[in-house]
């Protein structure tokens, strides 16, 4: 059985930051990721980041993992052990993690564990939503930004949050037509800067619109969309037929909390934060003292805040093992950073959700 001081599950922005933060404190870190390379979903984020300079604003997402990994290799020499192609399958009562590394079972008993498993895409119920040609927005990004393959010729984007807007723009960059972006709410959810770019590219954004049906025999041949009234009810006679071969769903994410449920961490359902999220204190420590969380698994936000949460979780996982150099000072800096990232109108929903989370079970 392997006994690292700290095990981190998930090597996306949150997990990598947690690893770097813990290694900087002097702890020994094992980072487990099911993929063959680190970086999580950053590998397909070709757009530049906003937010904090400290969290790589104005740098493209795809360029961030390389920076974190080289810092880890450099500063964590001998104390940073990444285990790739390693899927964590279970967490047992005695604190043992079961992992599958290339079909070999592994047992790991860390002293502290940081869960940074990220999120999964939400589905939208409508007839035909299972037809080939209905893709999650992340899948479209993977196809076109990682493998350089067009998802199709003409796309209907469902959802005008940041992901819907950004992926629509990326589709245009890849030479794919976007017929329209539809959004059920009466206003665009994403940043104005993304919406403006999309509109400049000639893509219509139809608010108060939803998808009624996807049709096609073996794959998507088109979609029926319609107008919604202020009560989110379809307005009769407002149907429009869109001839598209791809329907891309960008309707939000939900935390991947399976390991937290297994571990027995207390969770609370907060739609503002994406669904069930773990209760945690300001140290990102859950109701189980040896389990910390960071990133989308803790609250659906964006990579910048995921990285700061990672720093906090890694800092305290290490500090609680005695590697507590400058812990107060660092914690203060990270908390301020988080507060800045969540300031303003775009962070309102997150702030409300977190306030309710901290309001008790």
């Amino acid at each position: 059985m392997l006994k690292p001081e700290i095990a981190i599950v998930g090597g996306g922005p949150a997990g990598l930051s947690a690893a770097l933060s813990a290694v900087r404190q002097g702890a020994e870190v094992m980072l487990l990721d099911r993929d063959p390379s680190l970086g999580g979903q950053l590998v397909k984020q070709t757009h530049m980041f906003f937010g904090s300079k400290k969290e790589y604003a104005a740098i493209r997402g795809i360029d961030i993992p390389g920076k974190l990994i080289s810092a880890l290799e450099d500063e964590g020499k001998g104390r940073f052990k990444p285990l790739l192609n390693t899927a964590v399958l279970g967490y047992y009562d005695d604190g043992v993690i079961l992992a599958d590394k290339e079909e070999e079972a592994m047992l790991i008993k860390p002293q502290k564990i940081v869960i940074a498993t990220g999120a999964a895409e939400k589905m939208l119920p409508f007839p035909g939503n299972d037809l080939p040609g209905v893709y999650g927005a992340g899948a479209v990004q993977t196809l076109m930004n990682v493998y350089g393959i067009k998802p199709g010729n003409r796309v209907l984007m469902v959802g005008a949050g940041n992901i819907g807007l950004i992926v629509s723009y990326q589709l245009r960059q890849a030479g794919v037509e976007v017929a329209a972006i539809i959004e059920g709410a009466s206003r665009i959810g994403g940043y104005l800067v993304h919406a403006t770019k999309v509109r400049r590219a000639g893509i219509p954004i139809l608010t108060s619109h939803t998808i009624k049906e996807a049709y096609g025999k073996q794959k998507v041949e088109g979609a029926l969309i319609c107008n919604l009234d202020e009560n989110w009810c379809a307005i009769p006679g407002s149907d429009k037929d869109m001839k598209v071969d791809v329907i891309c769903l960008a309707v939000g994410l939900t935390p991947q909390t399976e390991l937290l449920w297994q571990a027995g961490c207390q969770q609370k359902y907060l739609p503002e934060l994406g669904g069930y999220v773990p209760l945690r204190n300001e140290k990102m420590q859950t109701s189980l003292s040896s389990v910390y969380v960071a990133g989308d698994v803790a609250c659906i936000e964006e990579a910048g805040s995921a990285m700061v949460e990672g720093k906090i979780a890694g800092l305290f996982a290490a500090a609680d093992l005695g590697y507590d150099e400058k812990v107060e000072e660092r914690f203060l800096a990270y908390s301020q950073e988080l507060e800045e990232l969540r300031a303003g109108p775009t962070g309102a929903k997150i702030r409300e959700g977190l306030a309710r989370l901290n309001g008790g079970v």
Partner: protein
Amino acid sequence: MRIEDHPIIKFKRGKPVSFTFEGRQIEAFEGETIAAALHAAGVRVLSHSHNLKRPRGFFCAIGNCSSCLMKVNGAYNVRICVEPVNEGDRVEMQEGRGDIIAQA
């Protein structure tokens, strides 16, 4: 369906490899997944639902949704969206849940 010119990304494709899908030869590049190669070749239907046999396609691309499970070199339930393609792979559609013991 491959993107040749992109304003931001330079795609570094690996060396060409070929594999078979349902007996048909498909060209791919080393470093891509089986699902990506099939998509580039125009294959959209990857499986069928167990009860109603409705067609299922590429959906999540990160090994979460099980819409793309196939039989690869005799092994069932391979998530082809995260399985790298290798020269000479034998890829077949899988009906039903398959057998958990790999066949030669």
